[in-house]
């Protein structure tokens, strides 16, 4: 067994420093977002910034706990954690507390716990465990199906809780599968369908079909014109056209006006600044008004006076953008990019494939949250209510992300011991 001193000497301090930089920057923004003159003590736990300080302190305890846990526990009990998590997700469906239409909370005393947040690390562990098993290869259909099941079981349960945002996060594990050998065709096909979906809503379906036909004719010039290839191109064209036509048909016939509106706003056909587009519109105003240097700490008017909804949770990035301007945005993007690249570097240096795969699991989850959360505040991605890791207010999400990341740091610290 290793001594205490050795554990700390093997820890990757770069990633730990990035973590604390993000958590503290996040706290500063929460303070600014909920700041009011009556309560200015930062330790006032009736206020959200006071509570967040408590969550941060608790996170430090969790980190220490993880550091003193034997690494074998994570791989050995990976399926156990996963099974427990699935049971908790089922029970929250049965006994959970309903908040704003989602049955996704457990109330323990004063503390609300959102199990969906913790399902992410459990799923990452289980996936890593499965894919690192000897003789499993993602070139085999059976392995793919089992992997997809590992991902979809918790995702489905969370979807049943009416928490679409958190459920979508599980789609990000496709990145792990890709890294571990899933054919790129899956990614490209998925992406193409998504693009076709948006195109057919943006433009008249006839134009899209004409465009696709032109694209197919061009493709025919560049490929070897064997019968097989020509048939393949034409087959793809017919399939793509069918998707375009059916999307349009489904949009107009199966969706209610409310859903149609949400989708229109989402892809930017309809700005609808009073209804579904209100959040994004106000969020862009807040960020855009920040300018290059920002308005200064506690000087942001849009966030301080509540023009941006959910400004301390899902829209926390607005506070950053308004009060610290483009420099602040650069800092946040920089911190996240640094974290992601560091995770890749660490993952790739793992000798154990379990640790590597888990590392990519961590990356996938964080990257998805980052992309969607910041993307929605600047109008690039649809408004999906998921928090910005380490920044957004909330105990459950902070603890879950901390556990997710620090299990990986713990695994990385252990790598030197492996032969």
């Amino acid at each position, binding site marked *: 067994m290793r001594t205490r001193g050795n554990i700390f000497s093997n820890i990757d301090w770069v990633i730990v420093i990035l973590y604390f930089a993000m958590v503290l920057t996040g706290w500063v923004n929460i303070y600014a977002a909920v700041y009011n003159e009556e309560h200015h003590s930062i330790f006032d736990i009736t206020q959200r910034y006071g509570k967040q300080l408590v969550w941060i302190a608790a996170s430090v305890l969790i980190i220490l706990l993880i550091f003193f846990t034997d690494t074998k526990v994570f791989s050995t009990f990976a399926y156990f954690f996963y099974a427990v998590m699935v049971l908790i997700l089922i029970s929250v469906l049965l006994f959970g507390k309903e908040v704003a239409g989602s049955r996704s909370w457990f109330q323990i005393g004063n503390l609300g716990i959102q199990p969906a947040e913790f399902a992410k690390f459990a799923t990452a562990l289980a996936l890593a465990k499965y894919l690192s098993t*000897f*003789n499993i*290869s993602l*070139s085999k259909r059976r392995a793919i199906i089992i992997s997809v099941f590992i991902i979809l079981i918790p995702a489905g349960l969370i979807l049943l809780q009416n928490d679409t945002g958190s459920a979508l996060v599980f789609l990000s594990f496709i*990145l792990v599968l*890709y*890294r*571990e*050998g899933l054919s790129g065709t899956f990614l490209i096909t998925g992406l193409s369908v998504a693009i076709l979906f948006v195109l057919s809503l943006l433009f008249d379906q006839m134009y899209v079909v004409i465009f696709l036909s032109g694209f197919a004719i061009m493709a025919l010039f560049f490929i070897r014109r064997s019968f097989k290839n020509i048939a393949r191109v034409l087959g793809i064209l017919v399939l793509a056209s069918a998707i375009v036509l059916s999307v349009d048909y489904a949009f107009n016939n199966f969706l209610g006006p409310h859903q149609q509106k949400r989708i229109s706003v989402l892809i930017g056909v309809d700005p609808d600044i009073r209804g579904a587009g209100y959040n994004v519109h*106000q969020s*862009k*105003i*807040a*960020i*855009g*008004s*920040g*300018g*290059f240097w920002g308005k200064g700490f506690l000087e942001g*008017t*849009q966030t*301080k*006076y*509540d*023009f941006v909804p959910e400004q301390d949770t899902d829209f926390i990035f607005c506070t950053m*953008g*308004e009060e610290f*301007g*483009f420099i602040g*945005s*650069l800092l946040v*993007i920089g911190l*996240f*990019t640094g974290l*992601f*690249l560091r995770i*890749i570097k660490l*993952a*790739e240096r793992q000798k154990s*494939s379990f640790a590597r795969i888990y590392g*990519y699991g961590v*990356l996938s989850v964080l*990257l998805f949250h980052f*992309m969607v959360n*910041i*993307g929605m505040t*600047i109008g*690039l991605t649809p408004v999906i209510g998921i928090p910005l890791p380490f920044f957004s207010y909330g105990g459950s999400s902070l603890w879950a992300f901390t556990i997710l990341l620090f299990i990986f740091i713990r695994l990385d610290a252990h790598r030197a011991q492996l032969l």
Partner: protein
Amino acid sequence: MASKKSYHTRKYVITGFIILIAFTYLVRLFILQVPNNSYKLSAQNNVLRHITLYPSRGLIYDRNNTLLVYNEAAYDLLVIPAQVSKFDTSYFCSLLRISQEAFNRRFQKALRHSRYRPSIFLEQISKEDFAYLEENLFKFPGFYFQSRTLREYPLELAAHTLGFIGEVDHNNISKEPYYDQGDYIGKSGIEKSYEHILRGRKGSTIKIVDVFNREQGSFEDGHFDTIPLPGSNVTITMDASLQAYGEMLMENKKGSIVAIEPSSGDILTLVTSPSYDPNLLVGRVRSHNYEKLLKDSLRPLMNRATMGTYSPGSTFKILNALIGLQESVLYPETQYHCSGPESRPIRCTHYHQTPLQLKGAIMHSCNPYFWNVFRSIFNQPGFQDNISNAYTVWRDHVTSFGFGKKFETDIPFEMKGNIPLASVYDRIYGKERWTALTIRSLAIGQGEILVTPLQMANFSAILANRGYYYPPHFLKEYTLDGNKVEAQYGKQYSSVIPENFDVIIEAMQDVIGSEHGTAHWVRIPGLTFCGKTGTVENPHGKDHSMFIAFAPKEDPAIALCVIVENAGYGSTWAAPIASLMIEKYITGDINRTWMEQRILESNLMHDQ
């Protein structure tokens, strides 16, 4: 592990993807934050509320510092629909004294305007209602008051002169950017003429508000706020007690009284009848009442004193005499017969000795005499062959007395009357195809010429001054930055020299003073006053009764013109009213109560 195929090169694809995302987001953020100003403006629109601070409008006083117009606080009830929560609407409606339907209509209107911004729910609530409402307002979140001021007229007089204020229209705003929707502006009378002095300057304050439009404090510690500057007070030339007396005398009569102080041109009284209570055109009831007044067949909104045009009638004979004297075709001793060939074609309507000299002719208002005077002006040597030139000379004399033009001082809605140009007669009769005989009606103040009561009063003032006048006006003084500014008006001379007025004034004194004068019965014991009656032929009905006068003869303090429509002879109605006005103004009291009683009890309001 070794048995597995390694896909480690895929880390480059993933790294590339991350960098692409980071780069895309940074570019997007840069575009949003750095070159783009529109979001900064939107942010300001979100949080800054520009609140207008309305100054109190200047007060209006009469020449003796009697308060004529002041401000009364009134309140607009505003609503922010988003802040309204459930409440007892029927109680609310009963408090406001509106119906449930009216409540729904107004609330829907506010909702259509904005959920988060205030809309006026009920405007101009009197301070009595306000006091009671305010105590109960806490039961109705989302509703609050904003104070405005209303004009109040304590003496209920001179509605036309004082005018009224109303909300600015599109025209006002496009002409003067100072005004915003909902501001008040003087729409007529003194309120309109001295809008710029009375209105003061609006102030503004910028407040920071949150998403629910709740005030969060002032912007930049009020650095950009401006304090409203109260409007300046205006003192007008009117004598309120004389005005009130005049309005009382004119009750149940159609017509007007204009009284001027000859030495200054100050308008002491300007009565038009029928009139209305100025308080009717204030506040919420304004448009309703205005509509009603507009439809009234007696036309109370028309200012007869400045807009009514009449033939001057016999009073105009004086002017022809003055022109004759000035042109040296008439002397005080000149005699004409009022029968026989000289009098053709105008016969005399009065019975008196003949022939008469000028003084007697004025006293008896002898038509043939003035026809002869008129003819002699046109038949002067040198003019005989050119009627057009002769007429123009005559016309220039007439207009030098203020006729046929506007004074353009501060009198609302002035009409200029009509003193036709020679070319008009050329057009009617053909060039040089007309003679003094053709236009003979002008000799006795009939025919094409039209004058306003205001011009006649000014004429009377010229007579009192023996030849000059100050353009009649209302402004006496106003305070600007604490200093009194006195209005200055230039002296205007008529074309007739003072000496030529002597005989005319003597004659006008005889009109009242002599036992044979046409208005002897309205004399005032102990006061020499001069006047001239007029009975104005009215093609549409009974003649108008007219009288011009000034007093005292030695040092005139008041000159006036009275017209009572469809009342017959000048001496019967206009003269006693003028006489009472003079007595009231000079002695401050009425001794001849029998005369006053007769006027007050008469109803001469005939529908034609």
